[in-house]
């Protein structure tokens, strides 16, 4: 253990305490927005449960901050269940969160499509049902890097999860029923696609070493948010060419209507500075315009990360009037705030 600590170049006390201490920091920084139930390891909206409102619960392994705890608050999530780093949380957490945010209108589980997350949320939904709480589950699976879902666990849930949480959260805040909120969430997932590219690996505190090896002049095209491999390993190239390849892969799969209106989300994976994210956004905006597509809304920043991985993901969502209105609705969380 001591060897790992000496070689681990991270701001940690002990690797096993990182998640809990980070949650304590979140609670200390944002007491006006969230509270943390440390017994159950759940981040709760400060005023949960909100009577008559559908509760939104998400969760997953830690290491993707600000996802999900940073999105707890008005207009987004009611609770987040952080697991250990890159490890799904357990059903007890999800059950405690579900009960804590049930304001009588039912609870929506937003689940990223990973084997562990799906199994644990499934067990939690069964337990909540036993306790008389109405639960709907929505799976996000937007990563176009996974091409052949017959031979894999299916497409991974990545960037669109942030957009689903924002738009479904706004729908719930506006008084939507459980069915209506779930329908919005599913529609966003169906209309959203993502792709990520990594320049370096992440390092989990417990492993203390890079999750994967990558050459100084290489990039992983289609990387997952836990360092899972993508479609191919390539030589690094100019940003314009990387963005063109990413955009091509996403649009080929999304097939938006001619002249469609898009939400463009350029997300940093943790180790890429904002100046580069804006270089990427500049290329993306130009290339989408050349294709006759309108970017009506955008989001640029680090929102669903992979520890210190240098890299970027692009998510495109085909908007409609309702989704655009929901995007503009007020949101007030530690990591996303406007109109409130």
């Amino acid at each position, binding site marked *: 253990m001591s060897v790992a600590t000496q070689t681990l170049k991270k701001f940690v006390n002990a690797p096993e305490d990182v998640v809990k201490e980070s949650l304590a920091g979140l609670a200390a920084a944002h007491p006006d927005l969230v509270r943390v139930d440390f017994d159950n390891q759940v981040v709760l909206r400060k005023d949960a449960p909100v009577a008559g409102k559908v509760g939104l619960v998400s969760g997953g392994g830690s290491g993707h901050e600000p996802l999900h705890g940073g999105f707890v608050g008005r207009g987004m999530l009611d609770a987040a269940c952080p697991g250990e780093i*890159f490890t799904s949380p357990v059903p007890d957490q999800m059950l405690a969160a579900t009960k804590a945010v049930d304001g009588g209108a039912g609870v929506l589980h937003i689940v990223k499509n990973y*084997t562990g997350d799906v199994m644990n949320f499934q067990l939690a939904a069964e337990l909540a049902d036993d306790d008389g709480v109405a639960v709907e589950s929505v799976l996000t699976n937007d990563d176009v890097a996974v091409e052949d879902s017959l031979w894999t666990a299916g497409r991974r849930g990545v960037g669109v999860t942030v957009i689903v949480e924002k738009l479904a959260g706004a729908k719930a805040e506006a008084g939507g029923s459980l069915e209506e909120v779930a329908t919005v969430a599913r529609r966003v997932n169906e209309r959203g696609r993502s792709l990520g590219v990594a320049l370096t690996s992440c390092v989990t505190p417990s492993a203390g070493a890079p999750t994967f090896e990558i050459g100084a002049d290489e990039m992983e095209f289609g990387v997952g948010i*836990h360092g899972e491999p993508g479609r191919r390993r390539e030589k690094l190239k100019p940003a314009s060419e990387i963005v063109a390849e990413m955009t091509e892969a996403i649009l080929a799969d999304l097939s938006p209507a001619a002249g469609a209106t898009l939400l463009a989300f350029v997300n940093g994976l943790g180790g890429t500075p904002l100046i580069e994210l804006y270089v990427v956004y500049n290329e993306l905006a130009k290339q989408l315009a050349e294709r006759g597509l309108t970017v009506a809304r955008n989001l640029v920043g680090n929102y669903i990360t992979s520890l210190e991985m240098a890299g970027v993901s692009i998510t495109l969502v085909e908007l409609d009037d309702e989704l655009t209105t929901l995007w503009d609705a007020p949101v007030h969380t530690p990591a996303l705030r406007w109109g409130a």
Partner: protein
Amino acid sequence: MGGLTRVDSATMARWLEGSAVAMREQRDYLTQLDAAIGDADHGTNMDRGFASVVTKLEELDDSTPPGKLLVAAGSTLVSTVGGASGPLWGTALRRAGRSIGDGESFDGAALATALEAALDGVVKLGAARPGDKTMVDALEPAVRALRERVDGGASAADALVAAREAAEDGMHATVPLQASKGRASYLGERSIGHQDPGATSTVFILRALEQAVRERP
């Protein structure tokens, strides 16, 4: 003694404690295997879960029947492991425990039935089949070998030797396979050449079961 071998709560407790020792000793090895084709947390997760099981055992009454003991251990794994291994091994032990029922002890045939129930639970929850490069590749042949030996008149202890050997063969056989379930599936062909960490921890757990039953006081 042959078919007279019976298994009781003390044996089950030794199995779980032995599994916990193995997970602690093999933690870094399992995590290394997982780093190659997964997300480098399998050893840490299994160690945390089985350590919690040992704590749970200390809280249980000595008169707890073996079936109930396994159900409690399974629930503890579900509550503490996370990832896919928690629900899978938790379900396996809970199903096995429920299959055993409330008796104070059980025989080799009931043990085989219990592990068949465990395998069934794992397959249903994980939707994995043999050859998918998962824990099923070790568990399924082990359960099959156990059933064959027990039906052939072997003692539980002897049948478990065959089961553990079958699990080891299954574990080695995952090396050339391409994963099609779980996180390793994203590697596609790049998962070939690596031993599956879930099949490996399954071997350690079955080895602990074999030892617990053989070393009955």
